[in-house]
């Protein structure tokens, strides 16, 4: 009994530790003075909260135009990277699940190694590739890099899903006269959908949050949200806008996660029903 009490205390402390910066992020979004980043003026008097950063974001204010632009670029890249890595990831997972030859062991090694490599190594090696091929870095190089590190995560998520997959369903479909493509689109894909959605969500979060790989391959002038923020932290008077935007993102993802939970629960019961 004593033991579990002790561990519960540690758990509570750890949770508090994890939430310290989150609380700061939310609070900083209401800071009136963007230069000194404080709620107090030069005399040490409290000058109150402000909602002006939120209205600036919603009005698309000129002063934070570049920030909003980088945010949209991040969303675009994350969206495209998610779609591409989901397509590549699904075919890869199916191949890895179905065949077990030498080709697949090479394939598996190639899919698995990016997972154990630190991000910075993927970033630098892609930079070297682009240097060696004399490619100018920009939108497309960022997209390629993001797809490269997302694919492996998507494959692993879908593979985990495939492990519970009853292969007899496919045979049943063939026996009932369905073709390969019909079976894929009407039997296999719907069953895999929750796995693909989970993998896609993971890819999206990884892509939108990535700073290390992007700094290597973004070239001059193209900035995603994280790289733009990290350049802003050095000298900017609009930093509270970053925190306000992060708070909005946090709220948005909370809602999204709640929805995805509902969807995945729905998908789960459906499969059980099918069995």
């Amino acid at each position, binding site marked *: 009994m004593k033991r579990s009490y002790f561990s519960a205390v540690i758990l509570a402390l750890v949770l508090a530790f994890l939430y310290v*910066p989150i609380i700061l992020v939310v609070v900083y979004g209401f800071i009136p003075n963007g230069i000194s980043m404080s709620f107090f003026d030069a005399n040490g008097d409290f000058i109150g909260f402000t909602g002006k950063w939120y209205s600036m974001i919603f009005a698309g204010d000129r002063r934070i135009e570049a920030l909003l632009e980088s945010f949209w670029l991040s969303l675009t890249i994350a969206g495209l990277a998610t779609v591409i890595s989901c397509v590549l990831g699904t075919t890869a997972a199916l191949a890895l699940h179905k065949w077990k030859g030498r080709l697949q062991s090479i394939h598996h090694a190639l899919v698995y190694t990016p997972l154990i490599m630190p991000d910075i190594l993927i970033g630098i090696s892609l930079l070297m590739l682009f240097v060696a091929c004399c490619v100018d870095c920009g939108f497309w190089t960022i997209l390629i890099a993001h797809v490269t590190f997302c694919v492996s995560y998507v494959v692993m998520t879908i593979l985990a899903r495939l492990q519970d997959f009853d292969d007899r369903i496919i045979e049943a479909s063939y026996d009932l006269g369905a073709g390969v493509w019909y079976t894929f689109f009407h039997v296999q894909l719907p069953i895999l959908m929750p796995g693909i959605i989970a993998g896609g969500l993971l890819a999206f979060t990884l892509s939108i949050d990535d700073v290390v790989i992007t700094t290597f391959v973004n070239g001059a002038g193209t900035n995603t949200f994280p790289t733009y923020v990290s350049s802003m932290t050095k000298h900017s008077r609009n930093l509270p806008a970053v925190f306000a935007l992060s708070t909005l993102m946090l709220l948005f993802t909370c809602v999204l996660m709640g929805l995805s939970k509902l969807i995945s629960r729905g998908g789960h019961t459906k499969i059980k029903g099918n069995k």
Partner: protein
Amino acid sequence: MSSSVKSKKAEWLTTLPSLVWLLLFFAVPALIVLAFTFHAHTPNGGVGEWSLSTWRDLVDPDYPAIVWKTIRISFEVTFWCILLSLPCAYAIARLPKRWRALVAGAIMMPFWTSFVVRVFAWKTLLHPDGWLQACYLTWLRVSEWVFDWLPSFLQKFFVFIGFASQDRVDPMLSTVLDSEAAVILVSVYTFLPFAIMPMYTAAEKFDFSLLEAARDLGAKNFYAFRKIFIPGIRQGIISAVLMVFIPTIGSYVIPQMLGGTECILIGNKIFMRAMQNRNIPHASALATLMAISVLLPLGCAMWWKKRQELRDRKRLDVRTAQLMTGGAE
């Protein structure tokens, strides 16, 4: 025959997209990095002739020290993460089922805010005017007082794990920001959920009645925890170690934002060489070193796992053989 050919074709068709993509954008770049390490660099930032000069330059006393520092900090971060997440995993797994998902979700939730933004929030917190500075000054005083009577080997240990500095520090001049401690603190913060999650998944499958049995047989709480719970979630611990150790080796944003000039790791050096000095062969060589320092412990872990599995199987075989002969009699 024709069906096997068809199946072969189908295999290639489904494998090809991802295989080609990863070959092109993962395997080939890795080979290019390796090839660049055997080139000299040109003053205008290009890659020169084949030569071994890059590897010779790496002997420069700076680099081994940086590699060692990176590895040491990664070990420290891993140590703290594991130490903190063990009781957490235990506590979550013992919660009622409905609460478990909720708490696990609460642990992952900070990750829905941008990583850079979170690190920057830490930076403001650790700023010399922040309240953490006050805590740090108190800690310095306490450690100074403790050092007056601590046996010398303990002091050396504290210095070794980075909890105390070799020389007495002047509390007025030192800050938490721009120090190794800041980097370790925020790294632990960043990677802790990645340590808790695999351990919790393992702990969830753990049979807690074993602990009760141990207690009934007279084991103390902590003894049972150490001898039964920890080996029981061994797989989870191994993956937690890897989940923390590998990204810490490669971390570069955290030391750059919080470490100042005090804490330059391989990641920072790679970034400097590649983006600022445009010395591409050097950056490649450092990247190769980093890859080695990741792959070595990983190889060891894999080897250990395999050996453990073999042992378990052997034990099982012996057991079955015993049972079989017992049955025959």
